[in-house]
């Protein structure tokens, strides 16, 4: 697509000559590299509470970020005004980081990444509000109809359409149009005179509204949230101590995100502050484990045609049969480590500097029948759903919190238990994986990953996984 036909060409009349001159301004004090990130973001958020659509928000933001890299130093400035004077001013501020002659010679641009992993003709954000508000109303009705013990339902629907243009001093020009939508349902249930329990569910992706109307409907998420809340009504206190843990397929893949994903981001490894630093080629997981980060899966929440530095995303093998193979790179880290790019340079918005981030992180299926995995476990914990997680990159200690789990007794899933946090150490935890199911499932599309104050959408997935030893943080002895 020529620049003139792109969103920013059409709407703001940007030309290659403009981009070239802003980049020259950015490199006017020297420096190795500069880039421009133009972003136009339209969002809407609709929610229902007590069966009333109480309020909703829609809005737009627009801005440009200018970055200059000089050695391992970065200068950054942004503006929410796209007038040439304001962009030039931002470029001059970012340029303050650099000294000496500019090492860049390239002129002209080549367009990166012409595929489309999310060919959504009409983004959800471009449809009528009436159609979208119907989704939360349907979710409310379905959750209340599920069980008489349901007494509160909140459903929320959020979408965004992001238009991005990246132009770099090494001659890359990329455009992307990134739709994203997510429907979430949260339910409270209680027995008469009993204490309330919560259940929640949600999903979405880089999809059209049709996804919620025909594939994963509001009723699907509503019933799932209500089911979880009802299950919790009978939950007993979670056990405490080390035990065998079986993770169900899908969202419990947050294990990979926390235990290994963050620790393999190249910025931490370049600085040697990660528990995984200098461990390429070493055994860091059981030979049954392969872990992949893949930004190219169609329609997925974590997928991108090109990352936020204009580099096409790809499939990256992080761990192969238990052996650490690679890190996730942004341009700065790949430049400083003289490594190839992996398409993992991401940022929250034009106000943020790119960093290495995950996209969709998962473990491919193994050979075991999930039923055999449960049967082979005399005593343990089966975790079907999780809330969030967190990791300390340096020590490698990570947590993730189970929201729906059950005791396994004599090879059978028995009583539900209350929420509990699981804790482990990244380079050690996956060594105890003794069985990998043949049932890989990706999550339904709810993940938000936070790092140094920046949030980006991500995906995770695992097949059923048996971990022989992990610490479970319940209260029961």
């Amino acid at each position, binding site marked *: 697509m020529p620049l003139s036909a792109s969103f920013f060409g059409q709407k703001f009349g940007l030309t290659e000559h403009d981009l070239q001159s802003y980049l020259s301004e950015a490199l006017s004090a020297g420096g190795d590299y500069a880039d421009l990130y133009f972003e136009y973001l339209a969002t809407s958020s609709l929610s229902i509470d007590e069966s009333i659509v109480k309020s909703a928000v829609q*809005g737009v933001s627009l801005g440009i970020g200018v970055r200059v890299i000089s050695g*391992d130093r970065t200068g950054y400035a942004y503006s929410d005004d796209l007038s040439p004077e304001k962009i030039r001013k931002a470029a001059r501020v970012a340029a303050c*980081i650099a000294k000496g002659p500019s090492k860049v010679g390239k002129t002209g641009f080549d367009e990166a990444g012409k595929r489309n992993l999310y060919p959504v003709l009409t983004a959800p954000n471009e449809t009528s509000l009436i159609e979208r*508000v119907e989704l939360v109303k349907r979710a409310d009705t379905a959750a209340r109809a599920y069980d008489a013990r349901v007494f509160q339902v909140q459903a929320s629907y959020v979408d965004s359409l992001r238009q991005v243009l990246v132009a770099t001093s090494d001659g890359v020009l990329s455009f992307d149009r990134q739709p994203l939508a997510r429907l979430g349902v949260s339910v409270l249930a209680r027995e008469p005179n009993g204490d309330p329990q919560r259940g929640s569910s949600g999903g979405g992706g880089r999809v059209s509204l049709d996804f919620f109307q025909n594939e994963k409907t509001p009723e699907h998420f509503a019933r799932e949230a209500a089911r979880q809340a009802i299950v919790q009504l009978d939950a007993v206190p979670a056990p405490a101590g080390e035990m065998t843990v079986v993770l169900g397929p899908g969202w419990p893949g947050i294990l990979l995100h926390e235990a290994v994903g963050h620790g393999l981001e190249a910025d931490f490894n370049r600085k040697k502050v990660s528990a995984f630093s200098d461990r390429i080629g070493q055994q860091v997981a059981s030979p049954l484990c392969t872990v992949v980060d893949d930004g190219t899966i169609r329609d997925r929440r974590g997928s991108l045609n090109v990352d936020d530095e204009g580099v096409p995303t790809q499939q990256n093998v992080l761990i192969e049969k238990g052996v650490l193979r690679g890190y996730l790179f942004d341009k700065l880290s790949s430049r400083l480590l003289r490594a190839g790019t992996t398409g993992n340079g991401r940022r929250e918005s034009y106000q943020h500097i790119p960093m290495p981030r995950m996209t969709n992180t998962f473990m491919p299926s193994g050979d075991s029948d999930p039923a055999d995995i449960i049967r082979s476990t005399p005593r343990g914990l089966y975790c079907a759903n999780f809330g969030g997680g*967190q990791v300390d990159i340096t020590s490698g200690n990570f947590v*993730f919190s189970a929201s729906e789990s059950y005791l396994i007794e004599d090879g059978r899933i028995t009583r539900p238990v209350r929420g509990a946090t699981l804790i482990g150490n990244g380079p050690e935890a996956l060594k105890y994986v003794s069985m990998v199911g043949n049932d890989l499932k990706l999550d339904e599309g709810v993940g938000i990953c936070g790092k140094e104050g920046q949030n980006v959408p991500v995906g995770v997935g695992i097949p059923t996984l048996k971990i022989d030893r992990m610490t479970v*943080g319940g209260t029961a002895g």
Partner: protein
Amino acid sequence: MIDAELATQAVQSALDSGARDAECTLAEGEEFSARVRMRALETVTDAGSRAAGLRVLVGRNVGCSYTSDLSSEGIRKLVASALEIAAISSEDPHAGLPEPSELGSLTTDLALYSDDINTIDASRRIEQALETEEAALSADPRITNSNGASFDAVNGERVFANSRGFVGSYRVSTCALSTSPVAREGDSMERDYWFSYARSHAKLESPAAIGRRAAERTLRRLGARKVPTQKVPVVFDPMTARTLLGNIFEAVEGEAIYRNASFLAGKAGQRVASENVTIIDDGTIPGLFGTSPFDDEGVPTRRTVVIDRGVLRSYLLNSYTARKLGLRTTGNAARAITGNASIGHGNLFLEKGERSPEEIVKSVRRGLYVTELIGTGVNIVTGDYSRGAAGLWIENGEFAYPVSEITIASNLRQMLMDIESAGSDLEFRGSVAAPTLLIREMTVSGQ
């Protein structure tokens, strides 16, 4: 400086377009951040942005919108967008703005803005970050690496106007110095951090003090081990104790209360904590981080006793949740420009007690001193609490060795009742603060 006229114009334009009521927030911010790492400059960010948020009521239907485009065309679209939303929302009998009699602004000097930050130029800011990191790096040979050090400064202005005659604005400034060293000994590698945060540059702690403290906090974690699973007393240091206050805020804010989504819903007037516990929200204290002259609905901030010697006295409310509960707003309305109206706190703190932190630790025969909590394992609906923890093991009233890769678990209802002492070491390093707290018993899960 933003033109406050812009907010009143947006409100008027909404009224002219058929809204019964409207309110508009304008926010402008400038940020500067310098990050150094391993004695060299790494990143400088220097930029600013502005945005407007609008809420309209058409009858009893609410609509919200925001934009980063403050041109007259941008404001026109902002109004149209909010009205479009109001047309698809449901009628809500409790929707509305605060009563005119409830609106107002504190008139005393709240010391929220200091110009001295702007007199420190970029090179001096970078120098201070370098000095902070250097103090940590040179504190001990086991500090071998660093996540860096930062100098951050923010200047902001907020303007609020509504259709009931309120117009107000205030400026804020903050600056911070922080560093995160990495220590190594044998196979053990640990990081920690320390920081100073202030509304004026003159009030920042010295780079040397921040760096040394960060180094001490990091070094004491080296060689951490797991402990066997057991029930023991747990001491929360002030940094982890304040996260408990954050949990309590979520349990007393009006939305969780009217939805019955809090373990404290319906408990007003009842004993919910030990008598050592008094929790106050005060948005009026000059110079602090949770202070403002009015909340995000134009209601003056105030001092609210949330828990008085163990008895739950007040929830924290905006005008909507107050109407839902048949109460009055406590001046706790909050709104992020891009979000819905919600509830926030001012300076939320637990009143200090008599005993020093040293005396509290000394009183524990065997237990855990928590210095870090990670993860999201707190359920406000049930009070169930289970989080990843790291800290120091206490034997006979003394720190014996560092521990990590453990969890601590209980239920917040029980934990509040089990608070045996609050230390004398209350200090504001943010808008939420607590002294050292001793909790009688929690389950520590490890080996």
